[in-house]
Protein backbone atom coordinates (compact mmCIF):
# COMPACT_ATOMS: atom_id res chain seq x y z
CA UNK A 1 0.00 0.00 0.00
CA UNK A 2 2.69 2.44 1.05
CA UNK A 3 6.34 1.91 0.46
CA UNK A 4 9.31 4.09 1.22
CA UNK A 5 12.64 3.42 -0.44
CA UNK A 6 15.81 5.06 0.87
CA UNK A 7 13.84 8.15 1.82
CA UNK A 8 15.68 11.10 3.35
CA UNK A 9 14.49 14.59 4.18
CA UNK A 10 16.86 17.40 5.04
CA UNK A 11 15.95 20.90 6.13
CA UNK A 12 18.33 23.78 5.59
CA UNK A 13 18.21 26.23 8.47
CA UNK A 14 20.40 29.11 9.55
CA UNK A 15 22.05 26.80 12.06
CA UNK A 16 22.92 24.22 9.42
CA UNK A 17 21.30 21.23 7.80
CA UNK A 18 18.89 19.17 9.85
CA UNK A 19 18.30 15.59 8.80
CA UNK A 20 14.71 14.96 9.81
CA UNK A 21 14.31 11.63 8.06
CA UNK A 22 17.43 9.60 7.43
CA UNK A 23 17.47 6.84 4.81
CA UNK A 24 14.20 5.16 5.76
CA UNK A 25 12.82 2.03 4.18
CA UNK A 26 9.31 0.94 5.11
CA UNK A 27 6.50 -1.15 3.72
CA UNK A 28 3.00 -0.63 5.04
CA UNK A 29 0.46 -3.25 4.06
CA UNK A 30 -3.09 -2.75 2.85
CA UNK A 31 -5.61 -2.69 5.69
CA UNK A 32 -3.19 -2.67 8.58
CA UNK A 33 -2.81 -0.18 11.40
CA UNK A 34 0.81 0.85 11.35
CA UNK A 35 2.27 2.85 14.20
CA UNK A 36 5.36 5.03 14.18
CA UNK A 37 6.60 5.86 17.66
CA UNK A 38 9.32 8.23 18.71
CA UNK A 39 10.04 11.10 21.03
CA UNK A 40 9.58 14.63 19.76
CA UNK A 41 12.26 15.54 17.29
CA UNK A 42 12.65 11.95 16.12
CA UNK A 43 11.35 12.89 12.67
CA UNK A 44 7.96 11.21 12.83
CA UNK A 45 5.99 14.37 12.01
CA UNK A 46 8.06 14.92 8.89
CA UNK A 47 7.75 11.25 8.06
CA UNK A 48 3.94 11.23 8.07
CA UNK A 49 3.88 14.42 5.98
CA UNK A 50 6.00 12.72 3.36
CA UNK A 51 3.19 10.21 2.85
CA UNK A 52 0.76 12.79 1.44
CA UNK A 53 3.31 15.08 -0.14
CA UNK A 54 2.99 17.91 2.39
CA UNK A 55 6.75 17.51 2.59
CA UNK A 56 8.90 16.48 -0.36
CA UNK A 57 11.76 14.08 0.30
CA UNK A 58 15.31 15.20 -0.48
CA UNK A 59 16.11 11.70 -1.70
CA UNK A 60 14.34 8.40 -2.24
CA UNK A 61 11.01 7.16 -3.53
CA UNK A 62 7.59 7.08 -1.92
CA UNK A 63 4.88 4.93 -3.44
CA UNK A 64 1.36 5.34 -2.10
CA UNK A 65 -1.47 3.26 -3.48
CA UNK A 66 0.61 2.32 -6.52
CA UNK A 67 1.49 5.93 -7.32
CA UNK A 68 4.97 7.37 -7.08
CA UNK A 69 4.11 10.60 -5.27
CA UNK A 70 7.56 12.17 -5.21
CA UNK A 71 7.70 13.00 -8.91
CA UNK A 72 4.07 13.78 -9.80
CA UNK A 73 2.84 17.35 -10.33
CA UNK A 74 0.68 19.42 -7.94
CA UNK A 75 -2.55 18.62 -9.77
CA UNK A 76 -2.01 14.84 -9.54
CA UNK A 77 -0.83 15.18 -5.96
CA UNK A 78 -4.12 16.90 -5.07
CA UNK A 79 -5.99 13.93 -6.55
CA UNK A 80 -3.88 11.56 -4.42
CA UNK A 81 -4.74 13.58 -1.31
CA UNK A 82 -8.45 12.89 -1.78
CA UNK A 83 -7.61 9.24 -1.11
CA UNK A 84 -4.93 9.80 1.54
CA UNK A 85 -6.49 11.90 4.26
CA UNK A 86 -5.17 13.12 7.55
CA UNK A 87 -6.26 13.89 11.10
CA UNK A 88 -4.34 16.12 13.48
CA UNK A 89 -3.35 16.51 17.11
CA UNK A 90 -5.06 19.90 17.35
CA UNK A 91 -7.95 18.85 15.07
CA UNK A 92 -7.45 21.82 12.73
CA UNK A 93 -11.13 22.44 12.15
CA UNK A 94 -12.36 25.65 10.57
CA UNK A 95 -13.93 27.65 13.39
CA UNK A 96 -16.00 29.62 10.88
CA UNK A 97 -17.85 26.49 9.77
CA UNK A 98 -20.33 24.28 11.59
CA UNK A 99 -19.66 20.60 12.18
CA UNK A 100 -21.62 19.67 9.05
CA UNK A 101 -19.87 22.35 6.96
CA UNK A 102 -16.47 21.23 8.21
CA UNK A 103 -17.22 17.65 7.17
CA UNK A 104 -18.50 18.90 3.81
CA UNK A 105 -15.30 20.85 3.12
CA UNK A 106 -13.25 18.06 1.52
CA UNK A 107 -16.33 17.15 -0.56
CA UNK A 108 -16.51 20.75 -1.82
CA UNK A 109 -12.82 20.54 -2.69
CA UNK A 110 -13.41 17.30 -4.60
CA UNK A 111 -16.31 18.93 -6.48
CA UNK A 112 -19.10 16.72 -5.13
CA UNK A 113 -22.58 18.14 -5.95
CA UNK A 114 -24.52 19.67 -3.06
CA UNK A 115 -27.23 16.99 -2.84
CA UNK A 116 -24.67 14.20 -2.51
CA UNK A 117 -22.65 16.27 -0.06
CA UNK A 118 -25.58 16.58 2.32
CA UNK A 119 -26.31 12.85 2.21
CA UNK A 120 -22.67 11.95 2.76
CA UNK A 121 -22.30 14.41 5.64
CA UNK A 122 -25.29 12.85 7.42
CA UNK A 123 -23.82 9.37 6.96
CA UNK A 124 -20.50 10.51 8.42
CA UNK A 125 -22.06 12.31 11.37
CA UNK A 126 -23.76 9.06 12.26
CA UNK A 127 -20.61 6.98 11.67
CA UNK A 128 -18.58 8.99 14.18
CA UNK A 129 -21.42 9.33 16.69
CA UNK A 130 -22.15 13.05 16.46
CA UNK A 131 -25.89 12.87 15.78
CA UNK A 132 -27.63 16.15 16.54
CA UNK A 133 -24.36 18.13 16.56
CA UNK A 134 -24.34 19.01 12.86
CA UNK A 135 -25.17 22.68 13.39
CA UNK A 136 -22.79 23.23 16.29
CA UNK A 137 -19.63 25.25 15.83
CA UNK A 138 -16.29 23.64 16.80
CA UNK A 139 -15.96 26.03 19.76
CA UNK A 140 -19.06 24.42 21.26
CA UNK A 141 -17.55 20.91 21.21
CA UNK A 142 -15.23 19.00 23.56
CA UNK A 143 -11.81 17.80 22.42
CA UNK A 144 -13.06 14.28 21.76
CA UNK A 145 -15.99 15.57 19.73
CA UNK A 146 -13.68 17.83 17.73
CA UNK A 147 -11.51 14.85 16.85
CA UNK A 148 -14.63 12.96 15.77
CA UNK A 149 -15.38 15.82 13.39
CA UNK A 150 -11.76 15.58 12.20
CA UNK A 151 -12.19 11.88 11.55
CA UNK A 152 -15.52 12.35 9.76
CA UNK A 153 -13.95 15.06 7.62
CA UNK A 154 -10.99 12.81 6.82
CA UNK A 155 -13.31 9.98 5.76
CA UNK A 156 -15.55 12.15 3.57
CA UNK A 157 -13.95 11.29 0.24
CA UNK A 158 -13.74 7.56 1.07
CA UNK A 159 -9.95 7.49 1.41
CA UNK A 160 -7.81 4.38 1.25
CA UNK A 161 -5.25 5.62 3.74
CA UNK A 162 -5.79 7.60 6.93
CA UNK A 163 -2.79 9.39 8.41
CA UNK A 164 -3.06 10.20 12.11
CA UNK A 165 -0.71 12.90 13.37
CA UNK A 166 -0.65 12.45 17.17
CA UNK A 167 -4.42 12.24 16.94
CA UNK A 168 -4.97 11.46 20.61
CA UNK A 169 -2.10 13.36 22.21
CA UNK A 170 -4.28 16.34 23.15
CA UNK A 171 -7.03 14.19 24.66
CA UNK A 172 -7.56 12.80 28.13
CA UNK A 173 -7.05 9.03 28.63
CA UNK A 174 -10.75 8.17 28.50
CA UNK A 175 -11.40 10.15 25.34
CA UNK A 176 -8.21 8.69 23.86
CA UNK A 177 -9.64 5.21 24.34
CA UNK A 178 -12.93 6.18 22.70
CA UNK A 179 -11.15 7.72 19.70
CA UNK A 180 -8.84 4.69 19.36
CA UNK A 181 -11.89 2.40 19.43
CA UNK A 182 -13.43 4.51 16.68
CA UNK A 183 -10.25 4.21 14.58
CA UNK A 184 -10.22 0.42 14.99
CA UNK A 185 -13.89 0.15 14.03
CA UNK A 186 -13.27 2.29 10.94
CA UNK A 187 -10.28 0.17 10.05
CA UNK A 188 -12.39 -2.98 10.29
CA UNK A 189 -15.57 -1.59 8.74
CA UNK A 190 -14.02 0.26 5.82
CA UNK A 191 -10.83 -1.78 5.46
CA UNK A 192 -8.75 1.36 5.27
CA UNK A 193 -5.06 1.47 6.02
CA UNK A 194 -4.15 3.60 9.02
CA UNK A 195 -0.72 5.08 9.64
CA UNK A 196 -0.34 6.82 12.97
CA UNK A 197 2.46 8.59 14.73
CA UNK A 198 2.57 8.92 18.48
CA UNK A 199 4.86 9.16 21.45
CA UNK A 200 2.58 7.02 23.60
CA UNK A 201 3.20 3.29 23.67
CA UNK A 202 -0.36 2.76 24.96
CA UNK A 203 -1.68 3.84 21.57
CA UNK A 204 0.60 1.40 19.73
CA UNK A 205 -0.28 -1.36 22.15
CA UNK A 206 -4.00 -0.80 21.86
CA UNK A 207 -4.59 -0.59 18.14
CA UNK A 208 -1.51 -1.22 15.99
CA UNK A 209 -0.62 -4.37 14.09
CA UNK A 210 2.91 -3.29 13.35
CA UNK A 211 5.19 -0.63 14.71
CA UNK A 212 8.31 1.26 13.67
CA UNK A 213 10.44 2.97 16.29
CA UNK A 214 12.12 6.19 15.21
CA UNK A 215 15.13 7.88 16.74
CA UNK A 216 17.19 10.66 15.21
CA UNK A 217 15.40 10.39 11.87
CA UNK A 218 16.07 6.68 11.50
CA UNK A 219 13.78 3.71 11.91
CA UNK A 220 15.77 1.79 14.51
CA UNK A 221 13.35 -1.08 15.01
CA UNK A 222 10.33 -2.41 13.18
CA UNK A 223 8.05 -5.39 13.47
CA UNK A 224 4.80 -6.88 14.72
CA UNK A 225 3.67 -5.11 17.84
CA UNK A 226 3.59 -8.30 19.87
CA UNK A 227 7.12 -9.28 18.84
CA UNK A 228 8.46 -5.85 19.60
CA UNK A 229 6.78 -5.94 23.01
CA UNK A 230 8.11 -9.42 23.70
CA UNK A 231 11.61 -8.83 22.53
CA UNK A 232 12.59 -5.18 22.22
CA UNK A 233 16.09 -4.84 20.75
CA UNK A 234 17.05 -1.19 20.99
CA UNK A 235 17.38 0.70 24.28
CA UNK A 236 14.81 3.25 23.10
CA UNK A 237 12.31 0.49 22.28
CA UNK A 238 12.86 -1.00 25.72
CA UNK A 239 12.06 2.36 27.20
CA UNK A 240 8.87 2.63 25.23
CA UNK A 241 7.83 -0.92 26.12
CA UNK A 242 8.49 -0.27 29.78
CA UNK A 243 6.04 2.67 29.54
CA UNK A 244 3.21 0.18 29.44
CA UNK A 245 4.63 -2.89 31.13
CA UNK A 246 6.59 -1.56 34.08
CA UNK A 247 5.42 1.25 36.23
CA UNK A 248 8.40 3.35 37.26
CA UNK A 249 8.31 2.39 40.90
CA UNK A 250 8.94 -1.27 40.06
CA UNK A 251 12.71 -1.04 39.92
CA UNK A 252 12.73 0.55 43.35
CA UNK A 253 10.57 -2.22 44.76
CA UNK A 254 12.95 -4.78 43.32
CA UNK A 255 15.87 -3.04 44.94
CA UNK A 256 14.05 -3.18 48.26
CA UNK A 257 13.22 -6.86 47.86
CA UNK A 258 16.80 -7.68 46.90
CA UNK A 259 17.82 -6.08 50.17
CA UNK A 260 15.18 -7.85 52.21
CA UNK A 261 15.64 -11.30 50.67
CA UNK A 262 19.31 -11.67 49.76
CA UNK A 263 18.88 -15.43 49.42
CA UNK A 264 15.94 -15.45 47.08
CA UNK A 265 15.98 -14.92 43.36
CA UNK A 266 13.99 -12.29 41.57
CA UNK A 267 12.74 -13.46 38.23
CA UNK A 268 10.99 -11.43 35.59
CA UNK A 269 8.64 -13.45 33.40
CA UNK A 270 7.47 -12.05 30.12
CA UNK A 271 4.29 -13.58 28.79
CA UNK A 272 3.20 -13.17 25.21
CA UNK A 273 -0.06 -14.16 23.59
CA UNK A 274 -1.40 -17.59 24.53
CA UNK A 275 0.86 -18.24 27.49
CA UNK A 276 -0.91 -15.50 29.34
CA UNK A 277 -3.91 -17.77 29.61
CA UNK A 278 -1.92 -20.71 31.06
CA UNK A 279 -1.83 -21.37 34.78
CA UNK A 280 1.98 -21.43 34.94
CA UNK A 281 2.09 -20.00 38.39
CA UNK A 282 -0.10 -22.61 40.04
CA UNK A 283 1.85 -25.42 38.38
CA UNK A 284 5.08 -23.92 39.55
CA UNK A 285 3.88 -23.87 43.13
CA UNK A 286 2.47 -27.41 42.94
CA UNK A 287 5.58 -28.96 41.39
CA UNK A 288 8.28 -27.31 43.43
CA UNK A 289 8.89 -26.88 47.14
CA UNK A 290 9.37 -23.14 46.93
CA UNK A 291 8.20 -19.90 48.37
CA UNK A 292 6.79 -17.84 45.51
CA UNK A 293 6.10 -14.20 46.08
CA UNK A 294 4.55 -11.94 43.44
CA UNK A 295 6.45 -8.65 43.42
CA UNK A 296 4.85 -7.03 40.45
CA UNK A 297 2.33 -8.12 37.88
CA UNK A 298 1.11 -6.38 34.79
CA UNK A 299 -0.83 -7.76 31.86
CA UNK A 300 -1.44 -5.46 28.92
CA UNK A 301 -3.64 -6.14 25.94
CA UNK A 302 -2.29 -5.47 22.48
CA UNK A 303 -4.35 -5.80 19.35
CA UNK A 304 -2.94 -9.26 18.51
CA UNK A 305 -2.89 -10.72 22.03
CA UNK A 306 -2.09 -10.09 25.62
CA UNK A 307 1.35 -9.15 26.77
CA UNK A 308 2.48 -9.25 30.33
CA UNK A 309 5.31 -9.19 32.77
CA UNK A 310 5.36 -10.79 36.15
CA UNK A 311 8.13 -10.37 38.65
CA UNK A 312 8.44 -13.23 41.13
CA UNK A 313 10.62 -13.67 44.13
CA UNK A 314 11.45 -17.38 44.44
CA UNK A 315 13.05 -18.59 47.64
CA UNK A 316 14.08 -22.09 48.65
CA UNK A 317 16.62 -24.78 47.89
CA UNK A 318 19.09 -23.42 45.29
CA UNK A 319 18.74 -26.52 43.14
CA UNK A 320 14.98 -26.33 43.20
CA UNK A 321 15.12 -22.68 42.18
CA UNK A 322 17.23 -23.56 39.13
CA UNK A 323 14.81 -26.39 38.33
CA UNK A 324 11.91 -23.98 38.58
CA UNK A 325 13.56 -21.50 36.23
CA UNK A 326 14.17 -24.31 33.75
CA UNK A 327 10.53 -25.32 34.07
CA UNK A 328 9.36 -21.79 33.26
CA UNK A 329 11.70 -21.68 30.28
CA UNK A 330 10.04 -24.82 28.94
CA UNK A 331 6.71 -23.00 28.96
CA UNK A 332 8.14 -20.64 26.34
CA UNK A 333 7.94 -17.76 28.71
CA UNK A 334 10.97 -15.55 28.54
CA UNK A 335 12.62 -15.33 31.94
CA UNK A 336 15.18 -12.99 33.25
CA UNK A 337 16.88 -13.23 36.61
CA UNK A 338 17.19 -9.78 38.13
CA UNK A 339 20.49 -9.27 39.90
CA UNK A 340 21.76 -6.71 42.28
CA UNK A 341 23.66 -4.66 39.72
Amino acid at each position, binding site marked *: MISLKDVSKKFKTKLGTIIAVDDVNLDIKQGEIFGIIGYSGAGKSTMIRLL*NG*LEKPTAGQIIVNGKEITSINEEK*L*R*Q*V*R*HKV*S*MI*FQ*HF*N*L*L*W*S*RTVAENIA*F*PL*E*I*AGVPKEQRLARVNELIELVGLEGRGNY*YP*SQLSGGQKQRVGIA*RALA*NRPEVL*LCDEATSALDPETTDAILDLLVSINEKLGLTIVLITHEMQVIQKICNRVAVMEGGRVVEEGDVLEVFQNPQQPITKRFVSQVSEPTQTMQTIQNLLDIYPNGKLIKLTFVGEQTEQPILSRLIKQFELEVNIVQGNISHTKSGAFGTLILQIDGDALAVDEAIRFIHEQKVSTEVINND
Partner: protein
Amino acid sequence: MINTLFPNVDWPKMWEAAFETLYMTAISTILTAIFGLALGLLLFLTSPHQAWANKLANWLTGAFVNIFRSIPFIILIILLIPFTKLLLDTIRGPNAAFPALVIGAAPFYARMVLIGLREIDKGVLEAARSMGAKTSTIILKVLLPESLPALVSGITVTCISLVGYTAMAGIIGAGGLGTLAFLDGFQRNRTDVTLMATILILILVFIIQWIGDMVTMKIDKR
Protein backbone atom coordinates in the same frame (compact mmCIF):
# COMPACT_ATOMS: atom_id res chain seq x y z
CA MET B 1 -32.91 76.81 20.11
CA ILE B 2 -30.61 75.09 17.65
CA ASN B 3 -30.64 78.22 15.49
CA THR B 4 -29.53 80.37 18.41
CA LEU B 5 -26.63 78.02 19.17
CA PHE B 6 -25.62 77.69 15.50
CA PRO B 7 -26.76 81.01 13.97
CA ASN B 8 -24.52 80.85 10.88
CA VAL B 9 -25.22 77.25 9.85
CA ASP B 10 -26.85 77.00 6.44
CA TRP B 11 -28.68 73.70 6.94
CA PRO B 12 -29.30 72.61 3.33
CA LYS B 13 -25.61 73.30 2.64
CA MET B 14 -24.63 71.38 5.77
CA TRP B 15 -26.69 68.33 4.81
CA GLU B 16 -25.32 68.41 1.27
CA ALA B 17 -21.79 68.47 2.65
CA ALA B 18 -22.61 65.64 5.06
CA PHE B 19 -23.97 63.61 2.17
CA GLU B 20 -20.79 64.26 0.14
CA THR B 21 -18.66 63.08 3.06
CA LEU B 22 -20.80 59.98 3.38
CA TYR B 23 -20.53 59.34 -0.34
CA MET B 24 -16.73 59.75 -0.42
CA THR B 25 -16.31 57.57 2.67
CA ALA B 26 -18.57 54.79 1.39
CA ILE B 27 -17.10 54.52 -2.12
CA SER B 28 -13.49 54.88 -0.96
CA THR B 29 -14.05 52.26 1.77
CA ILE B 30 -15.34 49.76 -0.80
CA LEU B 31 -12.42 50.46 -3.15
CA THR B 32 -9.94 50.35 -0.26
CA ALA B 33 -11.36 47.03 0.91
CA ILE B 34 -10.89 45.52 -2.55
CA PHE B 35 -7.36 46.83 -3.17
CA GLY B 36 -6.29 46.37 0.44
CA LEU B 37 -7.46 42.76 0.47
CA ALA B 38 -5.65 42.05 -2.79
CA LEU B 39 -2.45 43.65 -1.50
CA GLY B 40 -2.73 41.92 1.88
CA LEU B 41 -3.30 38.53 0.27
CA LEU B 42 -0.35 39.13 -2.04
CA LEU B 43 1.85 40.05 0.93
CA PHE B 44 0.74 36.91 2.76
CA LEU B 45 0.90 34.43 -0.09
CA THR B 46 4.33 35.56 -1.33
CA SER B 47 5.85 35.32 2.16
CA PRO B 48 8.13 32.34 2.94
CA HIS B 49 6.48 28.88 3.17
CA GLN B 50 3.25 30.11 1.55
CA ALA B 51 1.67 29.09 -1.73
CA TRP B 52 3.31 31.77 -3.90
CA ALA B 53 6.46 32.19 -1.80
CA ASN B 54 8.61 34.64 -3.75
CA LYS B 55 11.18 36.91 -2.16
CA LEU B 56 11.20 39.55 -4.90
CA ALA B 57 7.40 39.83 -5.19
CA ASN B 58 7.10 39.95 -1.41
CA TRP B 59 9.76 42.64 -1.15
CA LEU B 60 8.21 44.76 -3.93
CA THR B 61 4.70 44.54 -2.45
CA GLY B 62 6.08 45.29 1.00
CA ALA B 63 8.01 48.30 -0.29
CA PHE B 64 4.93 49.67 -2.12
CA VAL B 65 2.80 49.27 0.99
CA ASN B 66 5.39 50.85 3.28
CA ILE B 67 6.06 53.83 1.01
CA PHE B 68 2.42 54.81 0.51
CA ARG B 69 1.57 54.14 4.12
CA SER B 70 4.36 56.45 5.28
CA ILE B 71 3.59 59.50 3.14
CA PRO B 72 1.45 61.95 5.13
CA PHE B 73 -1.97 62.06 3.50
CA ILE B 74 -2.02 65.80 2.87
CA ILE B 75 1.27 65.48 0.94
CA LEU B 76 0.03 62.39 -0.90
CA ILE B 77 -2.96 64.37 -2.21
CA ILE B 78 -0.66 67.01 -3.66
CA LEU B 79 1.73 64.42 -5.11
CA LEU B 80 -1.16 62.61 -6.77
CA ILE B 81 -2.65 65.70 -8.46
CA PRO B 82 -1.09 64.92 -11.88
CA PHE B 83 -2.18 61.27 -11.61
CA THR B 84 -5.74 62.29 -10.64
CA LYS B 85 -5.89 64.74 -13.53
CA LEU B 86 -4.73 62.03 -15.93
CA LEU B 87 -7.25 59.53 -14.55
CA LEU B 88 -10.35 61.70 -14.10
CA ASP B 89 -9.57 64.86 -16.09
CA THR B 90 -10.32 67.02 -13.03
CA ILE B 91 -8.96 67.58 -9.54
CA ARG B 92 -12.10 69.03 -7.99
CA GLY B 93 -15.20 67.45 -6.48
CA PRO B 94 -15.79 64.27 -4.47
CA ASN B 95 -14.82 61.89 -7.29
CA ALA B 96 -11.42 63.51 -7.67
CA ALA B 97 -10.64 62.55 -4.08
CA PHE B 98 -10.88 58.80 -4.70
CA PRO B 99 -7.37 58.10 -6.12
CA ALA B 100 -5.68 59.77 -3.17
CA LEU B 101 -8.10 58.26 -0.62
CA VAL B 102 -7.66 54.71 -1.92
CA ILE B 103 -3.91 54.92 -2.50
CA GLY B 104 -3.51 56.38 0.98
CA ALA B 105 -5.78 53.90 2.78
CA ALA B 106 -5.34 50.60 0.88
CA PRO B 107 -1.72 50.02 2.02
CA PHE B 108 -2.81 50.74 5.60
CA TYR B 109 -5.62 48.19 5.29
CA ALA B 110 -3.29 45.71 3.53
CA ARG B 111 -1.12 45.64 6.68
CA MET B 112 -4.16 44.87 8.80
CA VAL B 113 -5.25 42.17 6.37
CA LEU B 114 -1.77 40.64 6.66
CA ILE B 115 -1.99 40.63 10.46
CA GLY B 116 -5.41 38.95 10.26
CA LEU B 117 -4.17 36.30 7.84
CA ARG B 118 -1.09 35.57 9.93
CA GLU B 119 -3.32 34.87 12.91
CA ILE B 120 -4.98 31.96 11.14
CA ASP B 121 -3.89 28.66 12.67
CA LYS B 122 -1.18 27.17 10.43
CA GLY B 123 -2.68 23.75 11.13
CA VAL B 124 -5.93 24.73 9.43
CA LEU B 125 -4.04 25.72 6.29
CA GLU B 126 -2.13 22.46 6.42
CA ALA B 127 -5.40 20.56 6.83
CA ALA B 128 -6.83 22.26 3.75
CA ARG B 129 -3.71 21.37 1.78
CA SER B 130 -3.88 17.80 3.03
CA MET B 131 -7.40 17.59 1.56
CA GLY B 132 -6.08 18.56 -1.85
CA ALA B 133 -7.34 22.16 -1.89
CA LYS B 134 -6.14 24.50 -4.63
CA THR B 135 -4.70 27.90 -3.68
CA SER B 136 -7.86 29.62 -4.97
CA THR B 137 -10.00 27.37 -2.76
CA ILE B 138 -7.73 28.08 0.20
CA ILE B 139 -8.10 31.84 -0.37
CA LEU B 140 -11.89 31.80 -0.73
CA LYS B 141 -12.81 29.07 1.75
CA VAL B 142 -10.10 29.23 4.40
CA LEU B 143 -8.09 32.46 4.41
CA LEU B 144 -10.99 34.90 4.02
CA PRO B 145 -13.65 33.21 6.21
CA GLU B 146 -11.16 32.30 8.97
CA SER B 147 -9.81 35.85 9.21
CA LEU B 148 -13.16 37.59 8.65
CA PRO B 149 -13.53 39.15 12.13
CA ALA B 150 -10.05 40.70 11.80
CA LEU B 151 -10.85 41.84 8.26
CA VAL B 152 -14.08 43.50 9.41
CA SER B 153 -12.58 45.23 12.44
CA GLY B 154 -9.69 46.31 10.17
CA ILE B 155 -11.99 47.85 7.60
CA THR B 156 -13.88 49.61 10.43
CA VAL B 157 -10.68 51.28 11.60
CA THR B 158 -9.72 52.08 7.99
CA CYS B 159 -13.18 53.51 7.28
CA ILE B 160 -12.87 55.84 10.26
CA SER B 161 -9.45 56.98 9.02
CA LEU B 162 -11.06 57.57 5.64
CA VAL B 163 -13.61 59.92 7.23
CA GLY B 164 -10.64 61.91 8.45
CA TYR B 165 -8.94 61.72 5.04
CA THR B 166 -12.09 63.03 3.27
CA ALA B 167 -12.01 66.05 5.56
CA MET B 168 -8.38 66.66 4.61
CA ALA B 169 -9.22 66.19 0.97
CA GLY B 170 -11.81 68.91 1.59
CA ILE B 171 -8.98 71.45 1.94
CA ILE B 172 -8.09 71.01 -1.73
CA GLY B 173 -11.72 71.26 -2.75
CA ALA B 174 -13.06 67.73 -2.67
CA GLY B 175 -16.23 68.95 -1.00
CA GLY B 176 -17.93 67.49 2.03
CA LEU B 177 -17.83 68.55 5.67
CA GLY B 178 -14.08 69.22 5.47
CA THR B 179 -14.46 71.86 2.77
CA LEU B 180 -17.42 73.38 4.60
CA ALA B 181 -15.59 73.57 7.92
CA PHE B 182 -12.51 75.06 6.26
CA LEU B 183 -14.10 77.55 3.87
CA ASP B 184 -17.33 78.54 5.65
CA GLY B 185 -16.16 77.92 9.18
CA PHE B 186 -12.46 78.68 9.52
CA GLN B 187 -11.86 81.22 6.76
CA ARG B 188 -15.02 83.23 7.52
CA ASN B 189 -14.46 82.90 11.25
CA ARG B 190 -17.81 81.20 11.93
CA THR B 191 -16.90 78.81 14.74
CA ASP B 192 -20.44 77.39 14.96
CA VAL B 193 -20.20 76.05 11.39
CA THR B 194 -16.90 74.31 12.18
CA LEU B 195 -18.43 72.95 15.39
CA MET B 196 -21.52 71.58 13.61
CA ALA B 197 -19.38 69.92 10.93
CA THR B 198 -17.32 68.34 13.71
CA ILE B 199 -20.42 67.06 15.49
CA LEU B 200 -21.72 65.45 12.28
CA ILE B 201 -18.34 63.81 11.65
CA LEU B 202 -18.29 62.48 15.22
CA ILE B 203 -21.78 61.02 14.82
CA LEU B 204 -20.69 59.37 11.57
CA VAL B 205 -17.59 57.87 13.23
CA PHE B 206 -19.61 56.52 16.18
CA ILE B 207 -22.13 54.90 13.83
CA ILE B 208 -19.33 53.27 11.77
CA GLN B 209 -17.63 51.93 14.91
CA TRP B 210 -20.93 50.60 16.27
CA ILE B 211 -21.79 48.80 13.03
CA GLY B 212 -18.25 47.39 12.78
CA ASP B 213 -18.32 46.06 16.35
CA MET B 214 -21.74 44.50 15.87
CA VAL B 215 -20.79 42.71 12.67
CA THR B 216 -17.48 41.50 14.13
CA MET B 217 -19.24 40.08 17.17
CA LYS B 218 -21.91 38.37 15.10
CA ILE B 219 -19.54 36.59 12.71
CA ASP B 220 -16.98 35.49 15.30
CA LYS B 221 -17.82 31.89 16.23
CA ARG B 222 -14.56 31.17 18.05
